[in-house]
């Protein structure tokens, strides 16, 4: 989704790094990365290191870093340019839940044009761009972190490693703690939900909720549909602040 923009802006001094947040790692990310065929670095973040290091709490999220390694925009919603298509689900007939999920997803508001314009302005004007924030503003806009949140981040990291080592039950225990202690990190929730084997096939990772034939087995307090309905899809992302 970003490759086209990268082709245009790389000669002007911008590099893009895409970071795939997935405990299932390279093999889960591979089809999407290969479909995008990027010239830019595309890396795998199995433990959501970018959440701990940069405060990423949802996807897509972007961070701007200048030539001196200084962050000029901390983690925020970064809608992809609306040119290319996402790798799709193909001609699959959709179960009711997926129809409901897509219905909610349609209500989610982003402004890709505004974000792209701001990015282009920064690439052109650098520090003179109003979109390049001062260091104090960058820190002030970064995620709050108290001791509870830090503990939740540790639980999440532990959960991802337990999952990778095959201890799914252990992973769930620690994912639950992470969700409780870091309630604003929606990636933490979606990652955990995506690992539950509710259905088979191409929809499996997107189901993110109870299995139709065994709903009581669902180990989490929320799921994608109930959480988004409760929050209001229009509140899925904070409004972008230039």
């Amino acid at each position, binding site marked *: 989704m970003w490759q086209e923009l990268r082709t245009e802006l790389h000669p002007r001094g911008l590099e893009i790094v895409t970071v795939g*947040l997935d405990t299932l790692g390279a093999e889960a990310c591979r089809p999407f990365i290969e479909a995008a065929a990027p010239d830019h670095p595309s890396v795998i973040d199995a433990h959501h290191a970018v959440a701990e*290091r*940069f405060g990423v709490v949802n996807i897509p999220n972007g961070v701007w870093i*200048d030539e001196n390694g*200084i*962050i000029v925009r901390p983690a925020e919603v970064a809608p992809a340019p609306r040119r290319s298509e996402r790798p799709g689900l193909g001609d699959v007939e959709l179960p009711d839940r997926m129809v409901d999920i897509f219905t909610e997803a349609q209500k989610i508001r982003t402004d890709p044009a505004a974000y792209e314009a701001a*990015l282009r302005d920064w690439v052109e004007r650098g520090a003179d761009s109003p979109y390049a924030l001062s260091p104090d503003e960058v820190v002030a806009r970064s995620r709050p972190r108290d001791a509870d949140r830090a503990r939740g981040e*540790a639980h999440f990291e532990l959960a991802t490693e*337990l999952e990778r080592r095959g201890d799914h039950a252990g992973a769930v225990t620690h994912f639950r703690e992470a969700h409780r202690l870091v309630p604003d990190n929606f990636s933490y929730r979606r990652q955990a939900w995506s690992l539950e084997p509710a259905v088979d096939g191409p929809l499996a990772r997107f189901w993110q909720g109870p299995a139709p034939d065994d709903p009581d087995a669902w180990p989490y307090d929320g799921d994608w549909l109930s959480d988004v309905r409760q929050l209001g899809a229009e509140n899925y992302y904070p409004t972008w602040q230039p």
Partner: protein
Amino acid sequence: MLLTSMRVSRAEFEAGTGWALKPEGACRGDICIPLADQPGDRVDVAALAPQLGMPLVSSEDGTLHALGPWSGSGRVLTSAEAPELELPRLDGTPFRLSSLRGTKVLLVAWAPY
């Protein structure tokens, strides 16, 4: 930072947490936190974590641990300096964010679900 043992080298501790262990204490950017004892070549994470206020959580069988981040400033970022990020590419080779110094970077997080 994931740990299978509570004893790690100073280099591993710094790479895992971003905090360097110096005579004046544990330091990151402009912040230094004094420590009770000067760590040797090997660091006892269980002793160090509470001094830094970093949470330590463990698996039920006690074989795997995660050391969480520092929360002393109340924000995820303590300065605008981009932390190092080292993550594998699809082919497994390591990528370091610091390798792009000299270029503007847009880091975009996504997910295949």
